Each structure stands twice: as structure tokens, then as C-alpha cells.
């Protein structure tokens, strides 16, 4: 009888200790545009996140991961994103805020990260100034100047003397135009024309005609990933600008794997610079793309999926370093200087700016098998964001 009592007590104590030692769930609040004009962004980023968890188990540093997703459609309304972040912090008690498909969303939520002292992992928003809005922000995507400068340098070195810039008339477009002009002119090139295209623009005809009439060596294009790029490229081919000897150079947004199939043949030969290509040759990318295609057969892995995937990787590696402690100050300290091999190549988090440092590749669109791919043929290593003040 005494034995039994003792063993019951021991068992009870054992259970109690185990229960106390079992750490609280790790709650990650995701703010992403899941509907509206940027629904494709949210889906890809979420896919990347889910893939990471499927591959590495849903426990990080002994804590079970709980993802709470909120749709901040349209994605450009800061008041909506801010309210959702407030709810995540107050109602759901999240430990980490993550996601952010577009810059206004990140800008609006930064003060919440500050006030509530939560780490904020930006997985897509690409304006330089985002990481300066709070000391608790880390970014795993890219910045626009970071991926624009290399193609300008490449162009200047490769017999392209005159360029006509065509950008979408909104903040990021102005940033891309500015960075390209700065880098290209500094490398000796000449900007012979520039035009800003309205974002709500169904027809590129007048702009393409203007470019054709000006006859530059190349036209630099920056438009948001989606139908604008498709319309431009189709028009570029239809109007025979390539036959007229004009090259097309762009940022990789234009030939994003998610849209390149909708462009089709007109995309062949376009030179662009970007940080991730599905066709990037590395063991990590091979594993990533194989697993992604299996999990999501209707989607192609693209830079947004990698942004989400690496965001989770960052969270996991950081928490391993802090032993599961998601306290904002400790988290950011541990995240600074973190290095790992991403499917895109080697990446690290700049200890001063908390922004991502990565390779930027110069690619050409080619047909591989029966798919269009961005094939890398040159690269710039460890590019820091040139857009920081």
C-alpha cells in the first residue's frame, strides 16, 4: 500500500514537473493580404511559411508553433493592418509579428512592434526605410535599391550606353527609377528618356510608341508584379521593339515565376536582376523547389515564397540561439548577424540595419524543358541595401 501511494506521488510530481517544463506555445501573428489585388502575395508567402513548418516540424526550441493569420486586404491600407496587429497583440497575445506584403502595411504596424515590444519579421515589403521604423524589425525579403543597382551596373558594362526608363508612377517606381539613374549615370551611361506610367493603366501603347520613337539601346522597366508587366512585354514584342535593336532590362519583379507563364514567349531574352530564381543551382534550392512543387503543384516557387520560408528559418534559428525566449530585445540581438544558406544563396542579417544582405544575380529568361526560367549568368555577392540613408 505504501509503495503504491509513494509511486502515485512520484508519478504526480513527475507529471507536474513535465507540465511546468512544457513551454508555452510560440504564437506568430501573420499580417498578409490574402484577398484583394495582392492576394497572390499572401498566398505565396503563406505557402513558404507552411512549407518550412512541414519540413522542419512545428516545434521551435521546444515550443509548439501556432500561426494566427489575418487578412489585411487591400494590403495598402495602413489603418487595417495596424488594427489587425493590435488585435493580434492584445487578443491573441502573439509573441512575434510577421508577414507584411506591402510597405504601407509594415510602416503602419512598426509603432505597434515598438509599443508592445514584439519582434517584427518583414517577409516581403521592399522599401529601404522599413527597417528604420523600429529597432525590432528584421527583414528577410529584399529592398528595391538592392536589386536595381546591379542591373544598372551590368548594363553600363555591357555596351548599353543609352537607356529609357519606364516605371510605374508610385513610390516604389520612383525609388527604382532613382536608384537606376544614379547607378547607371555614375557608371557612365546616359538616360535618354524617362516616363512614369499610371498604375491603373490598361494600355501601354503610347509609352511603347514613345520608346520606339526615341530609339535607346535599352529600356529599363519597373512595374509591380502582375498584369502591368505582362501587358508591357506583350506590347514590346508586338510592336517589334526587340527587332528595332532595343533591349529590355528590368528587375526580377517583371519575370517573377508566378507571372512569367502568363507572359509566355515575349519574355524570352529579357535581362533582369533579382535575388531568387527557381532555376538557381544549389542543393538547398533543389530541395526547396522539389518540396514546394510537391506541396503546391499549381504554384511555382518564387521570391515571395522564399521570403516566407526564410522568415520562418530566421525565427527558428534565432529562437534556438535564445533558447526559446521570444523577448523582443533578446530576439533582435540574436538575429543580428545571423547567417544561413537559403534556397536563394547565402544570406545574412546586417547587424547594424537588421536588413538582409544577399547575393543579387543577373539573369536572362530562357526556356528550360517546357518552362520559362530565369537563368543566372552573373552575380554580385553580399549586396547591402544601398538605399539606406
Amino acid at each position, binding site marked *: 500500500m505504501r509503495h503504491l501511494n509513494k509511486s502515485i506521488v512520484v508519478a504526480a510530481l513527475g507529471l507536474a514537473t513535465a507540465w511546468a517544463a512544457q513551454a508555452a506555445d510560440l504564437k506568430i501573428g501573420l499580417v498578409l493580404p490574402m484577398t484583394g489585388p495582392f492576394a497572390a502575395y499572401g498566398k505565396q508567402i503563406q505557402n513558404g511559411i507552411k512549407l518550412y513548418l512541414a519540413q522542419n516540424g512545428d516545434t521551435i526550441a521546444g515550443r509548439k508553433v501556432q500561426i494566427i493569420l489575418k487578412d489585411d486586404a487591400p494590403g*495598402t491600407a495602413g*489603418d487595417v493592418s*495596424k488594427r489587425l496587429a493590435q488585435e493580434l497583440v492584445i487578443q491573441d497575445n502573439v509573441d512575434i509579428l510577421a508577414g507584411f506584403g506591402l510597405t504601407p502595411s509594415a510602416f503602419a504596424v512598426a509603432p505597434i512592434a515598438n509599443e508592445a515590444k514584439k519582434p517584427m519579421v518583414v517577409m516581403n515589403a521592399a*522599401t529601404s526605410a522599413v527597417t528604420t521604423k523600429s529597432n525590432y524589425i528584421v527583414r528577410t525579403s529584399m529592398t528595391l535599391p538592392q536589386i536595381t543597382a546591379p542591373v544598372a551596373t551590368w548594363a553600363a558594362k555591357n555596351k548599353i550606353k543609352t537607356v529609357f526608363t519606364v516605371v510605374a508612377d508610385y513610390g516604389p517606381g520612383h525609388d527604382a527609377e532613382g536608384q537606376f539613374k544614379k547607378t547607371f549615370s555614375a557608371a557612365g551611361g546616359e538616360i535618354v528618356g524617362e516616363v512614369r506610367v499610371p498604375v491603373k493603366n490598361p494600355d501601354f501603347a503610347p509609352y511603347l510608341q514613345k520608346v520606339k520613337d526615341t530609339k535607346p539601346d535599352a529600356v529599363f522597366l519597373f512595374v509591380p508584379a502582375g498584369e502591368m508587366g505582362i501587358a508591357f512585354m506583350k506590347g514590346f514584342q508586338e510592336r517589334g521593339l526587340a527587332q528595332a535593336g532595343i533591349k529590355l532590362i528590368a528587375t526580377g519583379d517583371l519575370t517573377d515565376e508566378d507571372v512569367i507563364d502568363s507572359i509566355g514567349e515575349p519574355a524570352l531574352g529579357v535581362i533582369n536582376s533579382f535575388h531568387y530564381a527557381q532555376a538557381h543551382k544549389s542543393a538547398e534550392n533543389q530541395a526547396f523547389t522539389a518540396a514546394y512543387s510537391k506541396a503546391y503543384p499549381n504554384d511555382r516557387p518564387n521570391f515571395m515564397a522564399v521570403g516566407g520560408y526564410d522568415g520562418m528559418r530566421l525565427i527558428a534559428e534565432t529562437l534556438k540561439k535564445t533558447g526559446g525566449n521570444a523577448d523582443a530585445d533578446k530576439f533582435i540581438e540574436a538575429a543580428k548577424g545571423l547567417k544561413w544558406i537559403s534556397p536563394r544563396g547565402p544570406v545574412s542579417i546586417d547587424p547594424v540595419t537588421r536588413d538582409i544582405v544577399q547575393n543579387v544575380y543577373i539573369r536572362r529568361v530562357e526556356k528550360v524543358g517546357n518552362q520559362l526560367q530565369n537563368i543566372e549568368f552573373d552575380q554580385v555577392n553580399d549586396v547591402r541595401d544601398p538605399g539606406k540613408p
Partner: protein
Amino acid sequence: MSTQLKPAELDPLRRAADWQRWEYAFWLLPLAAYFIFPKSLSLLSQIAITALFALSLDLILGYAGIVSLGQAAFFGLGAYAAGLMAAHGMGDPTLGLLVAALIAGCGGFISSFLVLRGTDLTRLMVTLGVAMMLYEAANKLTELTGGVDGLQGIEVKPLLGYFNFDLYGKTAYWYSVVVLFALFFLARRIVHSPFGLSLQGIRQNVGRMPAIGAPVHGRLVAVYTLSAAYAGVAGALLTQTTQFVSLDVLAFSRSAELLLMLVLGGAGCLYGALIGTAVFMTAHHFLSNMNPQYWQFWLGALLVLIVLFARDGVIGLLVRLRGWLRKSA
């Protein structure tokens, strides 16, 4: 023959202007909400702000019969006015509201001349055109407005010098509700005044109005300006409670959703604006939480069902319900 109406004939109008019991009960709801939903104050504040915005549309649509798809123009003007003031050191909230009302009101006054004549469709498109042009202008002036990325550097001083805008949104909530109530009270008095009644006359039979001596154009300009000022105040409230201005405040979707909310609640009765907003935003919130990817389908289905079974919005439904209860009583 005396053309004066005898006092007894004015009684129904006077009675309508008195506050009913259910109205007192209605305004206890925001008070109760503070205690019942302490963790949802940011959603409730935004409902209050949007309700004020919807009120502005009801003044022109429900009472004067001007169909507008461009209220976001004035909402945005107010939002940017308050935002730019706060970003340049003049962050006092009440001052911001006044300036926003003034600027948005001016915008309304200037553009009112465009909506004086024409069919419903014409007015719809003209108001939409004005709003879209303002959107493109704000987008072009990225250095001033921040463009798509949004206006930052907004520092809103504590309300009345004392109440800080906190993370939980307590100050924001009371601020929004008090401003809403004050402006609602004013609107209510206006719609029951002779001016307000003349607006309804214009809506019902614009040809007749000059015959009884009511200056149609003058009234329309006045109510359009007032409504713009209301929308501007709502925009300023949003800026001050979120310390951010996105270009989205001028977007077509804001005007379109506003129209939806007002029609859902029932136009022409002021309370319809408040109820419609609360129903729409709450439904959106819950559906979005349940299904972040496909909530739009269910919200659309809800709207379709409501139209099929509840003409004239929720207010219409409540009125018919009351009539039915009275008959069976």
C-alpha cells in the same frame, strides 16, 4: 387667406424632432461596448469613424438625393490635412479636426457645383471622377503625401493635452465616439429643421421646390459642403487614431464600400448609417477571422440575401417589424 400652417399641423414634424426612448437606449450601446469588449476597442473605434463617414453620405444621399461614389475625396482631404499638420509639428488633435473640416468643406464647396445638375448616373460618375483625380494627384505628390507607402512621421499630441493615444485604443475609442455623437446630434437637428425638410423636398420633387420658394442650388451646395466637412472630420479621426495616412483613404473602394454600408443600413434616417456600418464591419471582421482567404464570398452572399429579403436595408426591416408587431398587438 392665411398661408401659415396651424400649430397642430406642425405637430408630427415637431414630434419627429424629439428624442425617442429607443434612441437613448441606442446611445448607451457604445458606452456598454467599452466594458463588454475591452480588447476590441480598435475595431470599435474604426466602426465609429466609418459610421461618421457614412453619416456624411446619408446627409447627401438619404436626404438630398445626391448619389455619390466620391465621398472618399473629402475623407482623404481631411485625413491628409490632419496628417500633414501632425507631421509638421502641429499635432494637437482638436485643432487637426477643425482644420480638416475646413479643408474638406472647401473641397466640397468647390466641387458642389459639379453635382448640381444631371441624372443619378451623371452625379455618380462626376463624384467618382473628382475622387479619382484627387487620388492620382496624391499619388503624384509622393514627396508631400508619402504616396502608396503612406505618410509617416505623424506625431499626434495627447488629446486635450492629457490623454495619450495608447496601444489598447482606449483614448482613440472615446475620442471617436464623442466626436461621432456630437456630429450626429448636430446632423439630427439639421435634418429636422426647415433646411433639412427642404432637402427631402428636393429629393422627392426637385421641380416643385422653386415654386414654393426654396432655392435648390443654394441648398444643395450647403448640404454638400456640410457633408464634405463631416467626411473630412472622419478622415482626420482615422489619421489621428492610427498615426498613419495611406493613399488608400482616397481609393474608390472606400467610397464604394461606404455606399454599401449605407444602403445596407437604410438611407434617409441617420441611424441607418450607424447600423449599416456596424453590421457590415462586424460581419467582415468575423468572416475574415474565420476564413482569411474566402470571406468575401460569404459577405457577398449575406448582402444578396439581405437585399432579397430586406428591402430598404436593416432600418426598413425594423420598420416593417415594428408595423407587424403593432398590428398583431
